[in-house]
């Protein structure tokens, strides 16, 4: 037997090679894998807790409080997968101590994974440190196998118990919170309608057939829209999720609330959920967007129930730093989907272990899972009116829809083809939801709002994705409101409106006596009177924290305003653009270089005046 650095030495309680059984070898590998995975996972959970609760480090890593129990399980799954071939090898090669090799290997893996949590440390430095820790642990374990076996056993039992306790605590906390919130509700007004806010994440208006898209992306919504009011020119207040949702929830413009790149929505303003709860409504949020709307980003405030991530094994693996690494993901794909060991080894050799924390590296709920969760919950609160918020992530990159949609729209493989298919999938899922509500006799006594938080770019203006400009592609969103007793069927509203006014509109339609601090103005007058105006359609985008140089907010904050005919945009570098968006909806002709350029100061002044005005109108929402 040799020491970790190659020197010969004796080991007091190591078995001679001839006396090691295959079962003992295999047992040692799995014991070491389990113990090291639990230690690594619990350390990961501790770092996440410090970042989330002590440092308030938002949008840097997965922030769910459930990380405390999901990360250890995720590491156990990953380490167990690695333990299978290692155990098979060491069951045959019994002259090598499995305890020593496994403790060294999994110790290295746990230390490497842990160091990857710190983004300023280079992955090769993390590897060096991990290997160093592994070599030291291997030396120690090899010298005292029996003692280490007993110690690892104790660690495995204690780690498992702690993980179960953390799961129980977090789950119990959510259950108790919901029960307390529901039991504290006052009596709801007689005949109060339900409110169902459906946000189709990343869906731009121009890609819906309801808004004239060439492809029939929303046939069912086209039909459903005949029963309510469709807003032809609704604008979001921001081109990305958190500030846009926060605006809808509070009735504030983006810069009038705190939800932004590194800060959650704070408790300074009332939210739709808290106001409806104060009138006796049961409240629940079901979100599939795990990047900017999970619990902890402030959007969950006021909800009795808030469901975000799935409790799937895949999501638990994605919670780990290794699960976020490109090499691990690609190796897994090569092994499981393509069954190609050569490619898997090449992926490992590429050595890309920087955790990505990007959109595909999660296991979000599909539209059908979101609607099922909501319908299950709704059954349990029958007898009370409810306010429910549903976020659908299917049309967000990577634009995934079930395989049965693959051949739709020519089966093309461009991002825009996938995007259109995912919108069609959403259309089908929404129709099923409405059919279920109708079958329960709930649909006509429910205020249904369908909208989006922002759009998406597919090369327009030389840009892709979102959160990098304020063009129509990102800020012009669908908005449809259905409530047969108050909203006239088949209405098209032509005025430019802001999603900022959604909160006041719901207060108005729900006949709540007071918005209790929610900002904005009801949109109800706009569907009766084509001259009625509500809040200015202002959109804002703060300078990015780490933007791509092509992003128009790379140099500074951006602002935009759509009036009755023109869309004014001030970019981060101070340049301005003006588009006649009604006759040039794709915004291809910038009018700011001509006579319209003189309008820029007036637009700037109007934006400043509006944003400087108190967000809370201080009066009940206007009624028609």
């Amino acid at each position: 037997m040799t020491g970790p650095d190659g020197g010969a030495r004796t080991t007091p309680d190591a078995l001679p090679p001839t006396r090691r059984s295959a079962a003992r070898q295999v047992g040692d590998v799995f014991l070491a894998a389990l113990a090291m995975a639990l230690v690594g996972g619990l350390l990961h959970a501790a770092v996440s807790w410090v970042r989330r609760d002590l440092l308030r480090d938002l949008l840097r890593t997965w922030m769910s409080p459930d990380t405390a129990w999901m990360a250890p399980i995720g590491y156990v799954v990953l380490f167990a997968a690695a333990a299978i071939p290692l155990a098979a090898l060491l069951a045959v090669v019994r002259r090598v101590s499995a305890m020593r090799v496994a403790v060294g290997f999994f110790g290295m893996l746990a230390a490497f994974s842990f160091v990857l949590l710190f983004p300023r440390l280079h992955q090769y430095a993390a590897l060096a440190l991990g290997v160093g820790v592994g070599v030291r642990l291997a030396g120690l374990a090899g010298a005292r196998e029996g003692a280490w076996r007993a110690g690892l056993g104790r660690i495995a039992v204690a780690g498992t118990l702690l993980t179960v306790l953390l799961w129980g605590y977090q789950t119990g906390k959510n259950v108790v919170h919901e029960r307390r919130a529901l039991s504290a509700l006052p009596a709801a007004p007689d005949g109060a309608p339900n409110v169902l806010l459906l946000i189709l994440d990343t869906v731009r208006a121009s890609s819906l057939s309801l808004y004239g898209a060439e492809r029939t992306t929303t046939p069912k919504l086209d039909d459903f829209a005949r029963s309510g009011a469709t807003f032809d020119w609704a604008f979001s207040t921001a081109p990305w999720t958190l500030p846009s949702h926060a605006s809808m929830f509070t009735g504030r413009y983006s810069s009038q609330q705190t939800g932004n790149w590194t800060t959650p929505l704070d408790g300074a303003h009332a939210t739709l959920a808290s106001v409806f709860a104060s009138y006796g409504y049961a409240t629940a949020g079901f979100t599939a967007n795990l990047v900017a709307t999970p619990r902890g980003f402030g959007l969950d405030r006021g909800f009795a129930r808030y469901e975000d991530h799935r409790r799937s094994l895949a999501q638990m693996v994605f919670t780990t730093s290794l699960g976020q690494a490109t090499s691990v993901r690609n190796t897994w794909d090569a092994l499981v989907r393509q069954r190609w060991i050569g490619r898997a080894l090449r992926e490992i050799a590429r050595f890309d272990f920087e955790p990505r924390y990007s959109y595909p590296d999660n296991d979000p709920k599909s539209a059908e899972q979101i609607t099922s969760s909501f319908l299950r919950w709704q059954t349990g609160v029958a007898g009370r009116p409810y306010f429910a918020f549903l976020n659908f992530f299917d049309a967000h990159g990577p634009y995934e829809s079930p395989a049965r949609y693959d051949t739709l729209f020519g089966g093309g493989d461009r991002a825009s083809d996938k995007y259109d298919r995912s919108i069609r999938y959403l259309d089908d899922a929404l129709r099923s939801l409405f059919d279920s509500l109708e079958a329960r006799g709930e649909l006509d006594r429910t205020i249904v709002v369908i909208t989006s938080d922002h759009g998406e770019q597919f090369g327009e203006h030389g840009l892709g994705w979102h959160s990098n400009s304020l063009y129509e592609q990102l800020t012009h969103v669908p908005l449809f409101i259905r409530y047969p007793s108050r909203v006239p069927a088949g209405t098209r509203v032509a005025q430019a409106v802001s999603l900022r006014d959604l909160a006041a509109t719901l207060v108005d339609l729900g006949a709540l006596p007071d918005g209790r601090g929610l900002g904005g103005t009801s949109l109800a007058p706009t569907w009766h009177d084509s001259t009625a105006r509500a809040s200015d359609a202002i959109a804002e985008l703060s300078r990015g924290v780490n933007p791509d140089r092509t992003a128009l907010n790379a140099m500074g904050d951006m602002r935009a305003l759509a009036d009755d005919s023109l869309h004014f945009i001030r970019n981060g570098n101070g340049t301005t653009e003006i588009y006649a968006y009604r006759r040039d909806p794709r915004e291809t002709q910038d009018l700011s270089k001509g006579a319209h350029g003189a309008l820029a100061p007036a637009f700037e002044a109007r934006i400043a005046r509006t944003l400087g005005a108190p967000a809370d109108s201080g009066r009940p929402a206007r009624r028609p």
Partner: protein
Amino acid sequence: MYIGPDALMPLASVFAAIAGFFLMFWRRIVGAVKHIATKFSSKR
């Protein structure tokens, strides 16, 4: 391999790599230090 500002290791990475190196060769390093210390003290 891409070499740019993002690929340049910050100071913490250097320290981490050095710590890893020390851990990997701990016995040899400790042995070498002891050897040098013994030689130094015997010369005196």
